[in-house]
């Protein structure tokens, strides 16, 4: 089997497995993610607590899947929103060209050249903490890459004959952009979604790790890792499980993105 197929299938199966577990995992045993049994804090993995308990006696198995669910949710929703914004922005800049294009892309370039996590942190300081805020802050910085890629595609595509044909039968620019140009650029756009998801999951994990993300009792993977770090010496398993899940989800999405890119983008050498 070719390398790209292997990557694609392996990535997809990892993600599918994690997604299923994120959906059903919290209900597989009788514990809830917020119930505290203080007498049984910091218990090692056993037949009763499959992944052990945390410092407040909450079941880590349930918490880990809830955390994965929240991380996935933030990653998928935020990346789809940011890719949609980036696509529309890039398509408008690429189609109209000229001064508008230059100003719009200059803005992207300026925003692109600044360390983006620093700005997310700045945004988080200003806005109310919470899941929505994190998503907004991440979307604000994550659409830039898509805007660049889509603009490049549109500039290439708009010179093609089928656009001229559409124009000559009287299609207006709205129709040309949304019915002809964007559907033709769908390959790179899908790749951008799969590239952006792990980026956002990781960014969210970093923010939660720094204490800027989700607040208790809800948890994302970064938050759980942060908790695990505080007891790394005595109870390393508390760090191990969320860390492995975060790494696995990054691995899955990266492999999927890589495989898709190799298949959809002929310029990547195999």
């Amino acid at each position, binding site marked *: 089997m070719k*390398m790209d197929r292997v990557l694609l299938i392996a990535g997809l199966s990892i993600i599918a497995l994690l997604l299923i577990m994120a959906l059903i995992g919290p209900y597989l045993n009788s514990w809830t993610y917020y119930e505290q049994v203080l007498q049984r804090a910091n218990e090692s993995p056993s037949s009763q607590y499959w992944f052990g308990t945390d410092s407040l006696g909450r079941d880590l198995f349930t918490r880990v899947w809830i955390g994965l669910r929240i991380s996935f949710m933030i990653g998928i929703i935020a990346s789809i929103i940011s890719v949609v914004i980036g696509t529309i922005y890039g398509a408008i800049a690429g189609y109209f060209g000229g001064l508008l294009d230059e100003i719009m892309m200059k803005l992207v*370039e*300026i925003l692109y*050249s*600044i*360390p*983006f*996590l*620093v*700005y997310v*942190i*700045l*945004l988080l*300081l*200003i806005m109310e903490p919470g899941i929505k805020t994190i998503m907004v802050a991440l979307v604000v910085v994550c659409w830039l890459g898509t805007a660049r890629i889509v603009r490049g595609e549109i500039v290439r595509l708009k010179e093609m004959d089928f656009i001229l044909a559409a124009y000559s039968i009287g299609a207006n620019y709205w129709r040309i952009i949304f019915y002809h140009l964007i559907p033709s650029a769908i390959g790179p756009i899908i790749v951008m979604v799969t590239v952006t998801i*792990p980026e956002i999951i*990781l960014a969210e*994990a*970093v923010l939660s*790790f*720094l*204490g*800027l993300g989700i607040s208790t009792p809800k948890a994302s993977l970064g938050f759980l*890792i942060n908790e*695990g*770090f505080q007891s*790394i*010496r005595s109870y*390393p398993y508390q*760090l191990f499980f969320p*860390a492995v899940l*975060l*790494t696995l989800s*990054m*691995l899955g999405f*990266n*492999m999927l993105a*890589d495989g898709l890119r190799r298949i959809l983008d002929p310029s990547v*050498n195999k």
Partner: protein
Amino acid sequence: MRYLIRKVSSSLITLFVIITLTFILIHSIPGSPFETGKRLPDAIAQNLNYKYQLDAPLGEQYLNYLKGLSKGDLGSSIKQENRTVNSIIRDGFPISALLGISSILIALSFGIMLGCITAIYRNKWLDMGVSLFTTLGISIPGFVLAGLLVQMFAVKLQWFPPALWHGPISMILPVIALSLLPMAIITRLIKASLFDVLGQNYMQTARAKGLPYSKVVFKHGLRNSLFPVLSYLGPAVAAIVTGSFIIESIFSIPGMGKWFVISVINRDYTVVVGLTIFYSTLLICINIIVDIAYAILDPRVKVWDRGIIK
């Protein structure tokens, strides 16, 4: 030369936009930065506002801020007395820079080496192994890796100190944790572009002239495949800056990244803004240097660049 002037001036505009943006953002926060839950007596609040010039109209504050920045004064902390952003940078930057530069150098040397080896030998298993390494390197988050390293080498084996900053031995683990991601990306870039370059006609010409293979690869091949790595250097520095926030906090290294995180948690706005501007300036400078290096190494770039801007 004109190219250089245009680059620098556009960077200055970028920097100006960044400063204005951060200023607006930070002043759009509702409430006073001195609110800590307790109500301050009005006289004290007024005095504090006076000291940090928060009572002036916004336009004047902005001008004062710009004036301070032009003199290299990034402002002072509102949470810790006698601490200025400049003093934080003075104390923290040498440490962070040492850490960052060694990470970049290690990432570059190992990345280029690994990339060359895979591109030259074209061995299926070697290729698979290196691909596995790069995929893992890109996927393992820095703080997970740091945790793993601390657990293995500091707690279990006790080869290295788990934290703090005592001489070169305590640098090893943080540098590994910081350099793995750029190392993996550089390996990929070199591998892909060297594959490409080795298939070009001029490589065959060089071989046909009778040059030894090693010379062909390193002198003609590698030089031309370094350009993608060069343009990756800007993002690499950005990755190391953001990585340093976490790594320095985990290993309690008294660098700038740790200070940044502390100020974020304490909501010390002026320090966060000052450091943000400092980081942005650093990155912009690095981008300029990369652009200049590009222009020097590849004479085609100037013509090409003019074409692409138009």
